[in-house]
């Protein structure tokens, strides 16, 4: 699993980790049903606390991207691949818009006007 943490990113660490994992899954290499590396290995690779990784994984499970199964570890949920790419792009867009002076609530207003 290819992971990159941007040092310029000022979001909470667990969010950055979730983004990195989302992107890795979207780029391929972890098809639906495949097992992710264990949280402690991800933490060791990134040089961060395993609890941060666990929090990111739980967030991704809430999102519907990952499944926690006893005996199988953390797996990619079927049908989730396309969604993770979209979520990732949306987050990147929202960050860019925020920097340009359009926080998420302004974007929501813009979307409402468009519909």
């Amino acid at each position, binding site marked *: *699993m*290819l*992971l*990159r*943490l*941007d*040092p310029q990113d000022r979001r909470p660490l667990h969010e950055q980790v979730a983004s990195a994992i989302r992107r*890795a899954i979207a*780029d391929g*290499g*972890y098809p639906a049903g*495949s097992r992710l*590396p*264990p949280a402690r*290995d*991800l933490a*060791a*690779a*990134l*040089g961060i606390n395993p609890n941060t990784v666990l929090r990111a994984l739980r967030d991704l499970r809430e999102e519907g991207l990952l499944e926690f199964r006893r005996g199988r570890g953390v797996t990619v949920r079927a049908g989730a691949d396309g969604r993770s790419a979209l979520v990732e792009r949306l987050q990147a867009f929202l960050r860019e818009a925020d920097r340009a002076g359009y926080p998420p609530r302004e974007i929501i207003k813009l979307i409402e006007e468009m519909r």
Partner: protein
Amino acid sequence: MTFQTRIRASTAGWVILVTAAIVVAMLATRGRLPDPIATHWGPSGQPDGRMSFLPALLIFLALWAAIAAGLLATLFRDSLLTHRGYRAGLGALLAGAGVFFLGLTGTTIAANLDRTDWADARPVGLGQVALVLVVAVAAGAGAGALARRGPHVEPIRTHARPEPLSLAVDEHTVWITRVTNRFLTGLAGVFLVAAAATAIASLVLPRWVLFAIALPLAVIAVAGTALSSVRVEVNWNGLTVGYGPWAWPARRIPLSEITEVWTERRTPAQVGGWGYRGLPGARTTVMIRAGDCLVIRRRSGAEFAVSADDARHGAALLDALRQQLRVDSRTSRTRRSPR
């Protein structure tokens, strides 16, 4: 009869032969042995432990059966049998173990023969133990050499070059994978249980059984565990391979050492089995399971491969980092190592 069938038949035949020999030898001499028989000899060479006849026989058989079963279990794959190295290893281990158990039984019978009481059994010293071991090793070597003869098939290998990496690569990009073979982990567990059982059994068996059997079984269990799972990491420090569930011990190959990176699909049949395979210094593979491997060529020309999931991204990152390092050294840029 195909070659594979012949191999399976002869190994099965050997296992049956050794089992039968142990049973027949013990039962045929039963009338001339005391009950209980001496099964444990102290450092002085004098008997100091005993066991009833049937439990002793059953324990000999159980230990032999455990080892033989573990080795025979690998005979399932046809493709393994056409690999010279695998046959040699299997033959050596089966022959050596069989001869060893025959020697174990023979020594115990000979010491107890025509004695009225176990305490009067003949002494068993280090010399006899050493003799049994030497004969077993010789038998193993002979069988291994014999088993090497015959076909040797190296299947064609798939070789995929790493794709260029889309994202900008810097010291904050890492790649991680973990590959585990649960069957191998389970097998190592079986050996651990056998080692523990033998250690406990050595309370009533000859003490040298503890060192001659329990210790090797424990060593196999530890080695098996270490080679049943691997963590592979690619980052600015190079390629790191961590063995076992705790990724320790770990081996790191720095980027400067690596001249080429690619991915291949390899199977245990191609490399001669599971675990650390090949010729150190020339071509080695850490084989956990059949499938994708990350392969590198080192500055010395030696090739090193390790089972890896998502290998293509690992190869892409490793290649990108390696090339970036060359660029940096030419322009004398220094990079801070990551946190």
